């Protein structure tokens, strides 16, 4: 009968009396998928190690970054956004912890690369970028975009691996924005960027001064965001710890496995793990960056449609995510790093049975993902990096551009939240 609603099919929110056999079965399927993906990832590692050690290393680091990002639900966008949206600094404190650790690690590496600080002697790999109007403009655009799209570049990569369709669309938007910025790059280069200074703190202050100023800056940032959190909200009571102590070694191992693979990690653990990984990655060539890989893909796709940007002026002299489209490979070490992040997040999400295709129901969200993505892409193209390359890798490089970009991101996130609050 058409007029009657079958109670079994009525849209109840909570499937009351959930079919108890279905959930565990789905979970087992999810875990099996994660194990299979882990095996495939290992096979790719072995296969790339055979041909090019650097590719294998970057693939492995990508997997590790993706795993950590997913497990700690680490989101650079939410760190900036939640300061203004919720008055919450939890994630920002995790980032500051990771930055402090990476600052010390990077410093040790840079002292070995450039023992004598002289003029023009920048350590190879360090993310010291031209500092100017484009850094500010790029950061503000990026900040607005990441709030609208619900994630930055690294966030969109790992959420794509978790099955968020909105993030997959945001990645396409980012690539469009990057390609547009590549097309305007030569104008920006002639107008401003070629004359913008590279300011590496040890050149002005010596190594000790540069490290101390950076650590002091992080301490002040920590105090400011803590004050901000205290000012705008009530401090929350700490979670009560589970008093149960494991009785046997087997149970101990089970609890440990559950903590690592199923339960989410505290965000500070995520920040510190990302900082440590970034230091180790730098020992291989240069620190973590996302935009180079995405920019290379964008230009390869555009070139296939005869819309490539061609030669980009001055790129060979620049560090960080300044890719050179003519010589880069679509499966080079930077694109592979990004693929690793998606793969690592997929493995982590599946093992925790958190993988699911999440399809936004409101059409506006697709507009936000594309629009926010294009904003992020253009901003990252101008600033030569995103929340990862131009911020998370730049501040530990003792580069002033990292701090300016962080300020611009904060302004952008503030504007983004204003905009977000007006959307339904």
């Amino acid at each position: 009968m058409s007029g009657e609603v079958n109670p079994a099919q009525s849209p109840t929110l909570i499937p009351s009396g959930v079919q108890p056999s279905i959930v565990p079965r789905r979970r087992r399927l999810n875990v099996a998928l994660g194990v299979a993906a882990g095996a495939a990832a290992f096979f790719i590692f072995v296969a790339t190690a055979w041909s090019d050690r650097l590719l294998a290393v970057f693939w492995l680091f990508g997997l590790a970054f993706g795993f950590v990002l997913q497990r700690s639900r680490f989101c650079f966008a939410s760190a900036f956004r939640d300061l203004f949206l919720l008055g919450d600094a939890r994630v920002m404190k995790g980032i500051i912890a990771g930055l402090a650790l990476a600052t010390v690690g990077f410093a040790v590496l840079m002292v070995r690369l450039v023992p004598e600080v002289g003029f023009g002697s920048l350590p190879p790999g360090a993310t010291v970028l031209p500092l100017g109007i484009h850094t500010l403009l790029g950061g503000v655009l990026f900040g607005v975009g990441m709030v609208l799209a619900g994630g930055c570049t690294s966030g969109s990569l790992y959420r794509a691996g978790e099955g968020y369709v909105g993030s997959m669309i945001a990645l396409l938007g980012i690539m469009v924005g990057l390609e547009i910025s590549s097309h305007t790059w030569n104008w920006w280069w002639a107008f401003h960027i070629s004359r913008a200074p590279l300011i590496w703190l040890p050149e002005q202050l010596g190594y000790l001064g540069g490290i101390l100023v950076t650590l002091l800056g992080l301490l002040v940032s920590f105090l400011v965001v803590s004050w901000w959190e205290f000012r705008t909200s009530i401090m929350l009571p700490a979670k009560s710890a589970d008093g149960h102590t494991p009785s046997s070694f087997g149970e101990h191992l089970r609890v440990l496995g559950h903590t690592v693979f199923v339960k989410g990690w505290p965000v500070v653990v995520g920040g510190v793990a990302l900082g440590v990984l970034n230091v180790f990655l730098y020992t291989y060539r240069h620190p973590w960056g996302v935009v180079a890989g995405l920019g290379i893909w964008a230009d390869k796709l555009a070139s296939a449609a005869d819309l490539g940007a061609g030669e980009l002026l001055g790129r060979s002299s620049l560090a960080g995510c300044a890719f050179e489209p003519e010589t880069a490979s679509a499966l080079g070490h930077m694109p592979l790093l990004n693929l690793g992040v998606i793969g690592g997040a997929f493995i982590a999400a599946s093992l925790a049975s958190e993988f699911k295709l999440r399809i936004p129901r409101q059409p506006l969200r697709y507009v936000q993902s594309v629009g926010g993505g294009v904003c992020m892409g253009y901003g990252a193209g101008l600033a030569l990096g995103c929340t990862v390359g131009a911020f998370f890798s730049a501040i530990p490089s003792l580069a002033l551009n990292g701090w300016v970009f962080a300020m611009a991101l904060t302004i952008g996130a503030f504007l983004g939240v204003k905009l977000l609050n007006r959307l339904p």
Partner: protein
Amino acid sequence: MKIDVRGEICPYPQVKTVAALKKLAASDQLEVLTDHPPALETVPAQAARLGYVAEITEVGSAEWCIVLRKTS
């Protein structure tokens, strides 16, 4: 009251929950159906600020129900 925020992008699961809590009658409870893992941390924290306690149950693969009740 019940809200379904499955499929939503970040931060809407949190934002919509807080908006619903502000409209909630004192005697009522709020059930939030979500597939967004970060919400499992941010929603209880936000709810606590408004005087609610959260109880999370897994209702499917990567789907959770968060029940929010007024602390007495």
